[in-house]
């Protein structure tokens, strides 16, 4: 389609504006993490310093929170990948009564407001279940966070894997067997390579989802366990810690961008045939 010059300029202009609108705030945080003044008044930039980065590195609070977040996100991601992949393989392979309902129930947790999930999980974890012979209570801490995060991370892993399986010809596994491959060879040369990039993309997304989760986390972390988003939220209101918050935010941003890029590339690839 041929566009007139004014139309082209208008489209280009609005695209640039959107990008500016999206990325200016990120640029500001990045710049502030190197800014000597603690003031957040605009423009307020007065030189460059690595003091805040050194301080963040030396203090335990943000570092511990970061490590906690990585640990929770990693374990939740692993659980999500295993359960999500198995569910996707079952759903892609078998026909059964109520399949649509099960498929909907699988993806519902991601659409549910975090506050609802949070309250529901908080209620469940704090309750003591009496099973007659023994009773137990889930309680709060690292494990409750992992369970809580896994509930919505499973959805991402499931969605990625099932999309890949649906796009692949169901005959591929038969073709492999037909050409003489045993079950283990088929898994090694066909099934796993086909799912590999979907698993990686789903894993990265699940990790990212868990890493910055705050709503469900607030309800299910308990008092002794602090993730990075919780630390940032708690310290944002303390003026002396705002520069450290900027440093942590910048750090997370710099780490996430290549991962986000990779996840997007992987989701797009492997869709041929």
């Amino acid at each position, binding site marked *: 389609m041929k566009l007139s010059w004014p139309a082209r300029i208008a489209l280009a202009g609005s695209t640039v504006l959107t990008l500016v609108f999206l990325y200016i705030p990120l640029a500001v945080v990045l710049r502030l993490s190197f800014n000597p003044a603690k003031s957040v008044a605009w423009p307020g930039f007065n030189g460059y310093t690595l003091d805040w980065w050194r301080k963040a590195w030396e203090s335990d609070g943000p570092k511990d929170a970061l490590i906690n977040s990585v640990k929770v996100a990693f374990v939740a991601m692993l659980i999500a990948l295993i359960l999500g992949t198995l569910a996707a393989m079952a759903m892609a392979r078998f026909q059964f009564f109520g399949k649509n309902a099960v498929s909907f129930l699988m993806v519902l947790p991601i659409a549910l407001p975090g506050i609802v999930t949070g309250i529901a999980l908080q209620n469940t974890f704090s309750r003591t279940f009496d099973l007659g012979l023994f009773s137990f209570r889930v309680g709060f801490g690292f494990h409750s966070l992992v369970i809580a995060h896994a509930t919505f991370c499973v959805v991402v892993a499931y969605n990625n894997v099932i999309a890949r399986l649906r796009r*692949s*010809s169901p*005959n*591929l596994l*038969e*073709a*492999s*067997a*037909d*050409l*003489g*491959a*045993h079950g283990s*060879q088929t898994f090694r*040369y*066909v099934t796993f*390579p*086909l799912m590999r990039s979907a698993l990686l993309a789903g894993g990265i997304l699940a990790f990212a989802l868990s890493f910055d989760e705050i709503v469900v986390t607030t309800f299910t972390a308990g008092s002794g366990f602090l993730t990075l988003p919780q630390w940032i939220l708690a310290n944002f209101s303390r003026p002396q810690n705002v520069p450290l918050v900027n440093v942590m935010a910048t750090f997370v941003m710099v780490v996430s961008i290549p991962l986000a890029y990779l996840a997007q590339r992987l989701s797009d690839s*492997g869709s*041929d*045939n």
Partner: protein
Amino acid sequence: MSSTNTPAIQLVGLRKVFGSGDHEVVAVDSVDLSIAEGEFFSLLGPSGSGKTTVLRLVAGFESPTAGAVLLSGRDVTQRPPYDRDVNTVFQDYALFPHMSVVQNVEYGLKVKGVSRSERRQRAMTALENVRLGAFSRRKPSQLSGGQRQRVALARALVNRPKVLLLDEPLGALDLKLREEMQVELKAIQRDVGITFVFVTHDQGEALSMSNRVAVFNHGRIEQVGTPREIYDHPQTAFVAGFVGTSNLLSAALSGQLLGIATPHSIRPERLRLVESTGDASAAGEISVAATVSDLQYLGADSRVRVVLEDGSHLLASVPSDRLVGVAIGGSVRLAWSQHAAVAVVDSDQLQGENK
């Protein structure tokens, strides 16, 4: 071709039922079949007639509810697909999307432990045989439909199987490519000399390519024979109607016209238009008066639809230059040789228990 008389494929009382209880579907029912070594054999039938299920039973993707599959005399009924000396060309080709063309072709050799250099060399030879040597490093997604088809063929043939199974391999191609591939497939089969079992719903394809054809309907074989036998001597009303066009005469009409009260089939091109006034009956000729209800001009031939006095319809295919003076609504006289009418079994009676 081997000198032994052992058939490449034997199917004995093969039966396959899907589902259970009220949802039970009999896909294949008491199929007995023998396919000789080096034959180009077609399984022909409408969709849902069981031909693809038979192919999958031979490949080992399904296991039969009853009966046996023998390859070169060996019972392989309980063997998995990777333990059968057959290879399949799938309808959607089923090329591995994450492998290059040459990796696809050498896959069968790789899983069987053939050394890297030998399998690469054999794969390249196989690709050159289907004129795709220059495309070896591409991904399947970078090929056209016809090229993917040839890769699938090379991937199967490189393993030198005793039998090649082809599941409607030309179904996804456009008409021109389809016709080219029909010639090419036939040539490849002559060159390699292995047994081809070809599943198709296209009767023209089956007739033009095969040594023999089995016509399937409702999970059963209605007739097995050479293309000429199938076309000239259909044994059932279904075969007569499915392979080519046919005039099916009911038992009553046959009794009236032919003097034999069993159903018959007559090909439209065997009916001739004769002078309606003249004395028709030469020796062995049968004729009947009719009214023309429709005319279709198709170039060299024309189709003439007529109504007989008792209201039954017939279709005649006649050379267009014989149509002088014939018009819709006009009276004509149709004649045919006694041999042109072939007695057929009413397929509905044959299949009565399935209905």
